[in-house]
Structure formats: structure tokens, C-alpha cells
């Protein structure tokens, strides 16, 4: 098989050397191979870090892990939309392919961001089911199969940060925790054992930076790579917190 002229792929990559240094753009052109994704292209650039002007440059820094869109680590802004670079196929992208870091998060270097705030939020909202005790607590209550299937959809969240990047209310001026950890509250509150800490989680998201910061732009649900019904989760939590606040103020036997 012979091609008269080698097909190439062009990249415009937003780079940044350190946490506080100014971002700049660098262009790259690499040979086309069938079935490339953005990560394989970045690896190709790393093999020979020469930009389009022929200058030697540093290899590009980015995060990756599972390479099958379940870990969320390789998220970046590709042609204006935040998504995972592992499932961003070069054949389906308009060229030049523009790569930027998700600037909602602190940029560590180039396309690498620090998503710690999301993991801190998960801790804040207690996104787990406490099962440890000083003695054997025995088996927990069973979960209906239909509910399990429903909950599975919410459990697909990989804390990738795309919803925070898309949200107009997650920015340097606000401390909104964003849609992802909120949806996890709904997930763990729906679990028969997790439900035992329902009020605690609701109280947490009724605090500063919590649920009430949502402005219903609904970008999150449009952007979520896993198709998680984030805005439905938020609306459902709005209802739960309405009841919780009534219970808190007017009083109730339940905690």
C-alpha cells in the first residue's frame, strides 16, 4: 500500500510550564495512522517532541490511566469541549485539534490538572457506606434488583471533572462543589445501608458551597461522558433538602 502524500494530523496545544506561569500555545504536526486517539497522538509527540516550526521542545505532560473511559484521569478540553482524551478519536475530530487543560482546576503542567477538590468534596459529603464496627454487624438490608440497576447508572461517575468544567457556577468566585459529588449523595442516600446517614449527607450539602449554588444551566447533564442524570439528581436532592429543612426547623422524630 502506497500513499503519494503522507497524511498528517495537526494539533494546537495549550501549554503551561508550572502552576503559576503564563499559558502559551504550541503547534505540532504528526503522521496520520488509522484509529488514532488523542492519547496515541500525544504519545507520538512525546517520542519526538519537535513543534511545527522544527524546534525541539519539552514533551507534553498529561494524565492518563485506564485508557477505556472509566477512570476520568485523561480529561481535557478537546476542540472546546471537556471530555476524555482516550475516547477522543482523531478521525472524528475537526483539525487542527485544539487541546487545553480543564482550567476550572489548578493546572499542574500543560494538560495536567489537579482534581483534588473533587476528592475532598466526596469526603465532605461522605460518599461511602459505613459498614465498619467493633463487632460483626451482620448482613445489611437487601436492595431490590430494579433499584440496583437504577443506582448503577449513578455509580458510573468517575470523578472526571467534566461537569465542573462545564458548570458556569463552578469558578474562582464561588466555592460550589459541583454536580458530581451531589449526585453521589443521591446514590448513597438511595442505598438501604447508606440511607442510615441520609440526614448527615443532606446537612452537608445544605452548607456553604453546597446544593443551593446550582443555577440550573444544565450544562453538566449535557456534558457528562457517562450520561449520568445529574440535573435529575440535583432536583431530587432539592426536594430532599426541602423536607430536611422543614424537619430541622419544625421538628420531627426522625433525625
Amino acid at each position, binding site marked *: 500500500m502506497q500513499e503519494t502524500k503522507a497524511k498528517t494530523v495537526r494539533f494546537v496545544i495549550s501549554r503551561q510550564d508550572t502552576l503559576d506561569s503564563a499559558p502559551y500555545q504550541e503547534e505540532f504536526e504528526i503522521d496520520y495512522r488509522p484509529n488514532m486517539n488523542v492519547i496515541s497522538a500525544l504519545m507520538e509527540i512525546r517520542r519526538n517532541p519537535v513543534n511545527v516550526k522544527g524546534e525541539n521542545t519539552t514533551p507534553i505532560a498529561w494524565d492518563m490511566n485506564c485508557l477505556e473511559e472509566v477512570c476520568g484521569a485523561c480529561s481535557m478540553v478537546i476542540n472546546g469541549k471537556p471530555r476524555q482524551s482516550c475516547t477522543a478519536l482523531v478521525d472524528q475530530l475537526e483539525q487542527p485539534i485544539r487541546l487545553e487543560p480543564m482550567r476550572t482546576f489548578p493546572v499542574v503542567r500543560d494538560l495536567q490538572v489537579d482534581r483534588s477538590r473533587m476528592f475532598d468534596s466526596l469526603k465532605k459529603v461522605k460518599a461511602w457506606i459505613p459498614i465498619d464496627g467493633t463487632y460483626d454487624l451482620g448482613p445489611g438490608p437487601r436492595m431490590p434488583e430494579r433499584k440496583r440497576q437504577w443506582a448503577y447508572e449513578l455509580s458510573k461517575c468517575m470523578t472526571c471533572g467534566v461537569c465542573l468544567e462545564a458548570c458556569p457556577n463552578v469558578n474562582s468566585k464561588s466555592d460550589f462543589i459541583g454536580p458530581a459529588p451531589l449526585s453521589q449523595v443521591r446514590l448513597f442516600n438511595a442505598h438501604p445501608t447508606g440511607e442510615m446517614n441520609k440526614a448527615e449527607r443532606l446537612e452537608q450539602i445544605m452548607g456553604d458551597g453546597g446544593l443551593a449554588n446550582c443555577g*440550573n444551566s444544565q450544562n453538566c447533564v449535557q456534558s457528562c461522558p457517562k450520561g449520568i442524570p445529574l440535573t435529575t439528581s440535583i*432536583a431530587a436532592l432539592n426536594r430532599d*433538602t*426541602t423536607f430536611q429543612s422543614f424537619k430541622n426547623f419544625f421538628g420531627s422524630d426522625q433525625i
Partner: protein
Amino acid sequence: MAGNREFFNRRLHSLLGVIPVGLFLVQHLVVNHFATGGEESFNNAAHFMESLPFRIFLETFVIYLPLLFHAIYGLYIAFTAKNNTSRYSYFRNWMFMLQRISGVITLVFVAWHVWETRVQAAFGAEVNFQMMENILANPFMFWFYIIGVISAIFHFANGLWSFLVSWGITVSPRSQVISTYVTIGIFIALSIVGVRALTAFI
């Protein structure tokens, strides 16, 4: 309660926008509509509203205080957003931005409108058909009123949609879509009422 002050403020903001401020807006537009029946019909309606008993208390607790809170906290909300419709041009994201823009326009309009009518009334001017006729005779003021009234109505209609979501009334995507249609209907209907009243003065 200290821990969830933000939650309380946001919910109060959402509630006050509908009750009483939204209801007052509807009532105000309906009373204005008397202008389409001629000068006398408008003056009678305006006089009836003016002569309601305990007027200053009604005004303070139904209009001034809720409106002030809604306006000031709303400005804070509007300026903490970082709008991104150029990157995410979804319908709801546009509504999100327009809600903030219309809120600010409405605030400017209402401030001017209160100065021109209620504050002047406190200084002894009479608020009647003649007064509005004089104001709206100026084409600039006429368009200022048209834009102000429509943005207030938009802000109310779209705010009603987000009120339903914020309080957890419309949870399912389907109910949110239907409430979108209903609030669009409210926007159109009230806009007709508002614009008809304004054009009746010229």
C-alpha cells in the same frame, strides 16, 4: 442555622421572587391593562390601589423588603457566575445567562420606574394616566419601558421554572420540559398584557 445560611438565602431568594414579588408583578400588569379601557378606567383602577387601607404596610412587606432582598442577593448571584454560552450553547445555559441579564436590566428599570412614579408621588405628584402619557410620549422612554417590562416578565417566567426545580417540585426531565412550555406560555401571555397597556398610553 449558621452553617446553612447560604442554603437559606438562596431558597428565600427563590421563594420571594415568586411570592410576593412575582404575584405583585402579575397584579401590577393586570391593573395597568385598565389603560386599554381609556383614561378614566385606568385612573379609577389606580385610585383604588392607592386607597387600599394600610397601604404603606402592604407596600413595605409585599413589595419593598422582598424586592430589595431579591435584588441585592440576585446581583451577588449574577456576578458569581462565569457565563459560558459560547462554548456550551444549550437552551438551558442560554436561559441561565438571560436570567441574569434580565435580572440586572429589570433592577435598573425598576429603580428608575420607582423614582419616577412612587417617589414622585411621595413628593406630592399625582400618579395617573396623564403622568404615564407624559413619560411615554418620549420615544426613548417608551422603548426603555418596553424593554424593562419584557425583561421583568421574562425574569419572572423563567424564574418560575427554576423555582419549581429549586424547591424539588419538578424533578423528572419530562416535568421540567413541560414546565418550560408552561412558563414560555406565561411569558407570552403576560408580555401581551404588558405591551398592550404601554401602547394604550400613546
